[in-house]
């Protein structure tokens, strides 16, 4: 591949990001039509940024859209009930790596047993576990929480009521809201859980990406806030891939956004007394991953 100037690289990147104006976009498309390497660079950017779409909520289009697609694509008229060929049992050899999360799970550390004094210390210093990125983001979120007037409109906490004017279909149930995500990591860095919180509903979902709890133990999720005297349990993380619960609704938004989230290993079924019995194994803070739609 030929070496491109930084201008070219930036142009490809901004095309993929979407911030070029109409003329510049046309220019990039012209370059793509004559330069395969440049096209490859643009496509690489589109792929890299395209993973962000994983976090965009799905919206069903109206059924008539499919009819229009069929006629525009020149497909045959109404189809008989589908008699589909079965997908081959084995995936094609060139299958992409989207499921890598499943297989790249870090190996379980056999022992989470920590002496009591160490535990206490670790709980006290837990705030320092957060990564630099989380710290930077939390600073921003904290400004949003305490001094929303310092932020541009768009970043102030989302209004809870919005006028929805929709011509062609009934308004959808909930206003768009920001999505927060925390990657709960071991001290060494291996991610164990991904926690997401919907800002408006405060509903959280936690997905395990690391190894399952050892037999007889359960993972339990905790909220740790400097505004609360002790860690609060958010419940046992189910044995399935993900667990979804509304229990954060009883906490203030400020607390939810600024808290540290931690997962401990507890006896099967969770802590019997509402207090954690192991040092936090995985910890993280929320970052705002999808801004509100307006």
């Amino acid at each position: 591949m030929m070496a491109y100037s930084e201008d070219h690289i930036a142009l490809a990147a901004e095309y993929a990001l979407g911030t070029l104006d109409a003329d510049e976009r046309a220019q990039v498309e012209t370059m793509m039509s004559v330069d395969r390497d440049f096209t490859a660079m643009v496509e690489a950017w589109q792929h890299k940024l395209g993973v962000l779409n994983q976090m965009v909520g799905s919206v069903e289009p109206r059924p008539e859209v499919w009819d229009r697609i069929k006629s525009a694509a020149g497909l045959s008229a109404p189809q008989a009930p589908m008699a589909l060929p079965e997908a081959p049992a084995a995936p094609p050899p060139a299958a992409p790596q989207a499921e890598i999360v499943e297989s790249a799970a870090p190996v379980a550390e056999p022992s989470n047993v920590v002496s009591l004094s160490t535990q206490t210390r670790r709980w006290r210093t837990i705030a320092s576990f957060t990564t630099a990125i989380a710290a930077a983001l939390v600073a921003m979120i904290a400004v949003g929480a305490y001094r929303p007037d310092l932020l541009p409109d768009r970043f102030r906490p989302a209004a809870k009521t919005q006028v929805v004017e929709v011509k062609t279909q009934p308004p959808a149930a909930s206003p768009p809201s920001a999505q927060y995500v925390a990657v709960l990591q071991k001290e060494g860095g291996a991610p164990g859980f991904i926690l997401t919180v919907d800002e408006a509903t405060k509903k959280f979902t936690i997905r395990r990406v690391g190894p399952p709890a050892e037999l007889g133990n359960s993972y339990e999720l905790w909220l740790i806030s400097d505004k609360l005297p002790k860690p609060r349990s958010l419940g046992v993380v189910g044995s399935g891939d993900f667990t979804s619960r509304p229990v954060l609704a009883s906490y203030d938004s400020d607390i939810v956004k600024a808290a540290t989230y931690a997962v401990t290993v507890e006896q099967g079924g969770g802590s019997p007394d509402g207090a954690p019995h192991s040092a936090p194994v995985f910890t993280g803070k929320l970052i705002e991953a999808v801004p509100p739609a307006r």
Partner: protein
Amino acid sequence: MLTPAELVWLIAAVAKGDEAAFERLYAATRAKLFGVVLRILRRQDLAEEVIQEAYVKIWNSAGQFNPGLSSPITWMASIARNRAIDVVRKRTEVSIEEEPAAMEVAADSPDPLARREMTEELKRLLECVGRLEPDRQKLVLLAYYNGWSREQLAAKFETPVNTVKTWLRRSMMDIRECLGV
């Protein structure tokens, strides 16, 4: 949602003109693609037009999909999103938001990342975005998710367009370096 491997197989069948496979592909991906373009266009009628054009293009160019370079859903979403961006950039003379049919984009269900689609690549990208200064993180995410132009971003950040231009460029270069590409 089908697995990426199943989607690859469906696209391969679509490339051979298999209409039933196309219908299954549409059923499996339409809500995600519509969510992406509706967020940018904020108008149902425009979003439907863009989705229609995008799927026609997918039907016609399925043979060009290279599973070694991109995941199926990313490839399809790029086609739809590019079309949506083209539409908003060409409509700058009319403010979409002021038209009567303007609507809120409401994701009918926030798609928690906790779903199976959350990939290692997304985590890596978010980590790199997270290393940017807070304002620039916002800038990049608003540009991507909402499809905003430099002018719209400049207005929101109360900053000259040229500054936004510089920020965007540096941010992309920082992300590039962070991702190691």
